[in-house]
C-alpha cells in the first residue's frame, strides 16, 4: 500500500484557520445592497400604488415590509464579514452564513473544472464569480462571488493549472 500512516498527531495536521481567509471585495456588499434596494424599491412602489389607487391598506404591508428590510440589512452587513475564501497549497475553501454558517473545502485533486461567471450587476461593479465544480451533485460545488474580475480570471487560471496536475 502506498500510504499508511496510522499514528498521526492530530495537532500536527494543517488546520483550516480563520486567519487564512481573505474577505471579499467591499464592492460586493454594495452590489448586494443595490440588488436588495431594487427589490425593496419596486415592491414598495407597487404596494404604494396599490394602496393609493386600489383596495390595499397601508398598515397591512408597511410594517412587515420595513421589518424585512431591516432584517435583510442586518444579515447582509453583519454576514458580509463572515464570507471569505482561503487558498492553500492543496485545497480551496469558502465560508459564509450568519445564521447558518457553512465552510466547504475542495482539494485540488478532486476538482472537475472551474469557470468565471458574471451577471449584469456584476459587470456594473466589475465583479465576477469563480465557480468550482466537483464530480458529485451541485451541493458540493463552491461559488466564490464578489471578486474583482481580473482577480477572478487569475484565480480560475491558477485553480485550473493546479487541478490539471492531478488528472
Amino acid at each position, binding site marked *: 500500500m502506498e500510504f499508511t500512516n496510522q499514528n498521526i498527531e492530530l495537532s500536527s495536521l494543517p488546520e483550516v484557520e480563520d486567519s487564512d481567509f481573505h474577505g471579499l471585495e467591499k464592492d460586493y456588499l454594495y452590489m448586494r445592497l443595490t440588488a436588495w434596494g431594487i427589490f425593496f424599491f419596486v415592491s414598495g412602489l407597487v404596494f404604494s400604488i396599490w394602496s393609493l389607487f386600489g383596495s390595499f391598506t397601508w398598515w397591512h404591508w408597511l410594517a412587515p415590509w420595513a421589518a424585512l428590510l431591516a432584517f435583510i440589512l442586518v444579515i447582509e452587513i453583519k454576514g458580509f464579514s463572515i464570507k471569505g475564501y482561503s487558498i492553500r497549497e492543496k485545497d480551496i475553501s469558502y465560508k459564509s452564513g450568519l445564521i447558518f454558517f457553512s465552510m466547504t473545502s475542495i482539494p485540488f485533486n478532486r476538482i472537475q473544472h472551474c469557470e468565471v461567471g458574471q451577471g449584469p450587476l456584476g459587470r456594473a461593479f466589475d465583479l465576477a464569480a469563480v465557480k468550482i465544480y466537483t464530480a*458529485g451533485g451541485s451541493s458540493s460545488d463552491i461559488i466564490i462571488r464578489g471578486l474583482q474580475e481580473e482577480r477572478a480570471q487569475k484565480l480560475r487560471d491558477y485553480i485550473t493549472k493546479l487541478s490539471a496536475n492531478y488528472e
Partner: protein
Amino acid sequence: MSEIDLSTKKRQAPIGVAILFILNLRKAINLFIPFLFLKYGAGSSLLGISLYAIGIILFLGFIAFSYFEYKNFFFYAVEDKFIIERGVFRKDKTTIPFERIQTVHTAQNLAQQIFKVVGLKIDTAGSADNEIEIPALDRSYARSLQEYLLKKKEKDKKQQSEPGEEETIEQPEVESWEKPILKLSIKDLLKVGLTENHLRSGLILFAVVNGYIWQFEEFLLEPFEPYLEEAEGWLTQWVLLLPFTILVFVVVSVAFSLIRIVLRYYNLQFFLNERGLVLKSGLLKRNEFHVPRNKIQYFKWSSNPLRKLLGFKTFVVKQAGVNENREDKRTVSVPGCKNKQLIDVLQEFYPERYSGKFHRLGSHRLLFFQRFIWLVIMPSIIVTASFYASELTWHYFVPIPLFVILGAFWAHKFQRSVQFRTNGDVIEIKKGWIFPSHLSITMYKLQNVSLNRSIFQRRRDLSTLVFFTAAGDESMPHLSHNDAIDIYNFVLYKIESSQKSWM
C-alpha cells in the same frame, strides 16, 4: 473473449428489427390508445375509415419504420470516440469519447429475452440525458463490446495522464477470477418480499394509483353507502372507512412488494471478479450491472425490524455518477445479504476497514430535541387544534398524549443510534433505530467536506459535517465543534495525500 473490430460501421443483430418494432409499438400504444378510446370508443371510425383498417395501416407502417430504423442504426469507432448513428427521418449522430464513458451495462426486457438478444446501455459523465442504448445485440457480441468499451476507456484515461508513453500502456493481463457472493433462491426471494417495507411500497403504489382512483369514487364507496348516510360529518365517515381502508392497503401493499421484489430480483446473482463486482437479476427484464473497482465510491447497508430477525440486510453499492437521491434504475442494490457476505465484499474492496481500532463519536442531544419538536410536538399541536376546532368529544384527544410519549421515545432512540466512527482510513456512519442504516467510506474516495453550524449549534458548540462523494452526500449531525474540526482537517489531509485512483 474475441477481439472486436469497430473500424467499419456495424449494425445490430438482424432480429433487432423485431425488438425495434416492439419498442415502437409500445411507444405508439402509450400515445394513441388513450386518445382513441377516450375520443371514439372501440369499433367506431375516424375520417370514414374503420379503426381496424387504421390499425392494420399503422401496423404495416410500424414494421416498415422499424426496418428502416434498423437499417439506419450504426455503431462504430473513430480514433478515440465511439459513434452511434440512428434515425429514419431525422438523422442523429451521437459521439462519445471513450474517456467519458462511465459504465456499460446490459439489460434484457421480455422481448429481448424471447428473441435472445441483449440491450447494451452506455452511461456517460456529465449531461442529464446520459444513457445511450443499443437495443439488440447477440449476447456474446454484447459481452465483447462491453469489454472492449471498458478497456478502451481505461486505456484512454491512462493515455491522457501520461502522454508519450503510449506503447507501455498495455496493462498486464490480470488473471481473471470470479468469487460468488450471493444467489437468491425462490425461498429467499419470498422472504425478502414479505419483509419489505410495505408501508413504503404501499405509499409508492398509492401515489401512482391516487391519480386514477378518484374517477371511480362512486363505485368504490357504494358498498358503504347505507352506513355512511347514517354517520354525520367527514371525520366519522373517515373513522368508519378507516379499518377497511387499512385492510385493503395492507393486502395490496404486501402483494405489490412481493411482485416488485420478484420482478426485480428473480434469480439474483451477485459476484466479484478481478475487475469489480457484478450483479445480475430480474424476471421479465434482466439487468446486468458491472461496477468497475474504481467506480465504487462507498457501501451502505440497511435493515428493518422483520429483516433483522432473519439476519437480512439490503446492501447498496454507491457508484460514481449515479444520483443517489432519486430511486435510480442504475442503483446496485442487493437484498437478502447476510453479515458474512457483507464482510466478504468489504474485505475485498476496503481491506483498510479491518486494520486499526475504531474511534467512536455520538451525536448531541440537540438531535433529540430537533426531531421531537419538528416531528412530534408540531404535528400534535396541529392535530389538537384541528380537533378542537371541529368540536370533537374528548375520546378523540386520547391518542395524542400517547403519540407524544411514543414519539419522545423514538426520538431518544434515534438520537442514540446515530454514531460516527473512524479508524483513520475508513469513515462509517450509523443511523436509525427502527430502520438502521450503516455506511462505510474509505477516506480517499471522498471528494470534499463541509462544516455547517447554525446559531442553535453555535450556542452549544456543535457542528454538522457533510461528506461529499462522487456518488452522493452523507452527513453526521451535531458533533462537538472541536471533534468536527479535527475530522475536517484529517479528512482533507487524507484526500490530499492520497495517490490512489478514486473515480
